[in-house]
């Protein structure tokens, strides 16, 4: 129980990512079917996405989209915002000194406190990783399809046996 409270519960996101990752790795190593290997690869990838996104979580924070108002003009107020941004910077430094209690309420008109917004960087990285993952999965499925066309099977041992008999040119 002590172990659970000290090492598992505060770090539960890392435990979940390791378990998911090992499920994926085990599938990639031991499964005989190429499609099952790809499913393992997707689980592995999901584990990494979970890992990154869970790093960016901050207790008591909201999504990294700032509140703004549409009624303010565009070009005119840009300079005013730039000016007020400078004195925001001082205030955020000041706020960082009492970092310990991050539960304080959002002060609406004073600067942007980084503690009130989730870390945007992991979101950006995973946003592209998800779409690139889909396209690479598509390439992998295309390769599996052309392997099936050549060998008539997606089982690894059957493909290897056919390669030993005479290469991929063998008509099935």
């Amino acid at each position: 129980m002590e172990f659970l409270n000290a090492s598992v519960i505060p770090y539960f996101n890392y435990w979940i990512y390791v378990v998911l990752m090992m499920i994926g790795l085990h599938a990639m190593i031991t499964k005989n079917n190429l499609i099952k290997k790809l499913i393992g690869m997707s689980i592995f990838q999901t584990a990494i996405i979970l890992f990154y996104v869970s790093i960016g979580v901050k207790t008591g924070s909201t999504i990294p989209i700032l509140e703004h108002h549409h009624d303010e003009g565009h070009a005119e107020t840009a300079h005013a915002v730039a000016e007020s941004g400078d004195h925001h910077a001082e205030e955020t430094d000041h706020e960082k000194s009492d970092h310990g209690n991050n539960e304080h309420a959002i002060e609406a008109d004073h600067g942007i406190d980084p503690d009130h917004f989730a870390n945007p960087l992991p979101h950006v990285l995973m946003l592209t990783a998800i779409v690139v993952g889909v396209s690479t999965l598509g390439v992998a499925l295309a390769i599996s399809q052309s392997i099936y066309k050549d060998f008539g099977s997606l089982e690894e041992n059957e493909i290897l046996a056919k390669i030993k008999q005479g290469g991929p040119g063998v008509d099935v």
Partner: protein
Amino acid sequence: MKWFGLIATVFTGILLLSAVPDFAAFGDPDSPANGGLGDHPSVSQYYITDTYTDTKVPNIVTAVLADYRGYDTMFETVVIFAAGIAIFAILRSFSGPVAPSHPTAIDTSVEGDHQRIIIGTTCRVIIPVIQLFALYVVAHGHHSPGGGFQGGVILGASFILVALAKDLSAALGRFSEKRYLALGSVGILIYAGFGLLCVALERNFLDYEILHRIMPATDPIMARSHSMLGVEVGVAFTVTAIMFAIYANLSSKGRLEQGF
């Protein structure tokens, strides 16, 4: 082999779990990734505090994606395009029409007719809404969750829905192979074009600020915001085209015909 795989997996798992106590606890705002180390703030803190004054884009994720990390996103888009080209190279076959091995079973019974009516009517109603929502997600990506990748995937999915509900040739009639290959390339060209435009105006690649000289009624800050919308549209083009290309090629073994 099975046992060796299990041992390797368990060993790797133990190795990773042994590193877990060194990580910051879940939701810790002072962890190195969130709060920086010592006196050095992390880059994400800069993004949160300064994005709005730098670019006037309230969605920090979009600003980081399309501006601060513009190179990264450009080449991610190139990766997606390359995946589409790779699938084309691996699967596409031009061997002409062959008698389908599994002819499409067209259900001519009354029940089949009813099913076709239900599916067809539902799709006719919801596909325009899906596509409109996709365009909203792309165009409103600055102000709400969204952007080129998400909107592109939704738009590509609407074409996949046409192919699923009717058949592949109906979807290809709306979005032919020539068009999706062209659209995929145009997306990359738009993105790279914004970068090259900055170079032409004697700034660094993808340094959008200088584009206020050629964009009407903007200042350097709004030029960054508008250029982000431009590159997001480019990303959306490529993602839409490649998502549909992947489906069309995989579902027809590269023949782009129904019934295989």
